[in-house]
């Protein structure tokens, strides 16, 4: 068994908490994972654009006072469905890993 699309899953998961722009997404990943995970900033944008093309996230340019508009992303209904699937896949994957690691420990013991 193999868990695929980690970055996609992380981005969708983070957007679950609400719409965000790219920089905020990077910060949210760090804070939500207590600093364990960090997203490659350059990789984030191609990933976001791909998810947007697939209809898993929507994007909108929000005007700002005295500054250029900012692109903000939000999870779509299709994206929520994809996130559920990714979560299930991850849980199965994690359960498998835990089972294997646990079995090794019990063998040692």
């Amino acid at each position, binding site marked *: 068994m193999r868990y695929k699309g980690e970055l996609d899953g992380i981005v969708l998961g983070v957007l679950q908490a609400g719409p965000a722009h*790219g920089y905020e997404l990077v910060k949210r990943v760090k804070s939500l994972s207590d600093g364990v995970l960090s997203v490659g900033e*350059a990789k984030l944008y*191609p990933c976001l*654009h791909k998810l947007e*093309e697939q209809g898993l996230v929507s994007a909108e340019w929000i005007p700002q006072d005295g500054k250029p*508009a900012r692109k903000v992303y*939000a999870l779509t209904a299709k994206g929520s469905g994809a996130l559920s699937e990714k979560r299930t896949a991850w849980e199965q994957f994690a359960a498998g890993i835990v089972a294997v690691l646990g079995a090794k420990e019990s063998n040692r013991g």
Partner: protein
Amino acid sequence: MVEDYLQKLSETLTAQCGKEKSKTILAEVRDHLDQAIEELVGRGLSRQEAEKTAVSRFGDAAAVCRWYADQHRRPSVWRASRWPLVASAATTVLWHFQNDIFPSYFLAKFGALIVINTMLALTAVLCYRSKRFTAGPITLSALGLFLLLVGSFCLFSVPIFGEYGYGVIARSSVDSEIERARQMLARSERNLQTFGQGQKVFASKTEPKEGVGQFHDSRGYLTPIYFQTLDPRVHVYIDNKEVNGIVPTYKDARDFWIDQPSRVSTATGKSEIFYIAEATDEAADSRRLIRELPNAASLPLATKLPAFAGTAKWEAIFLLGFGLIADVTGGILRMLVETVQRRRNRGPLTS
């Protein structure tokens, strides 16, 4: 430093993703870097140090472009180009080998039209889905078709001399084409012989349009024209005089028209007009076909290739034209759909 980085990114992204897409990506990256720099300056770094750190944290510009190339561009390119290539190749094969595949010319023509239109619609949908114009892939498809056709002609066809230079026919059609040339030669010689005897006959499919017309020979020949209306229902007029039975010269025949009932069938050959110059050309062409066609298959490739490439060239240009029309159609379709969507749904933050 940020400007240098964005400039480098812009050059590669524009080449890979197009100007518009590149512009929106750069706006987003600029916003990201601005926020990072603002935060780092807030933590006590100098502006220069903050810029350096933000750029280095974001990653190498070349790597960013590679990510776009891998995740964004290639699938769209191939998704948009493969079907037009397959569909157009199928159409062209149908077209060129129709006599061997289909008993009916009209069936083949109808089938080819369906495939061409399907291709057009399919390309429009694919261009729509790929979210950008795909002139590059379509050009590649046209080039692919050109090479495919030249290859197919080398295997299954021979060059044939025709009215407009060299064309291509299937090898299996050579015998029937020689037979047709023999019949054409016999007819031309018969007509020329009749003319030589001082008689006035002549028929061909170059009949002028019904009604009044200024006479001119499309090839610029100042040859006399000879009329004999074998069908009593057909009347030929030159300078307002009925001319059945006379032999006018070009000078005499500045204006002429043919008056015939609409039911006269040109298939009988009786009501057609034939120019002597064409009889001579037709006889010469027929002799050349009869002489060349039996050995056409064994001609050296260097002789055959220009004829094959000449025919394939027009097919490729045809595909390119169709593809570009579909490309523009797809682009317009997308703009319309996006405009409607924007009006209906103004986005998650404002809804």
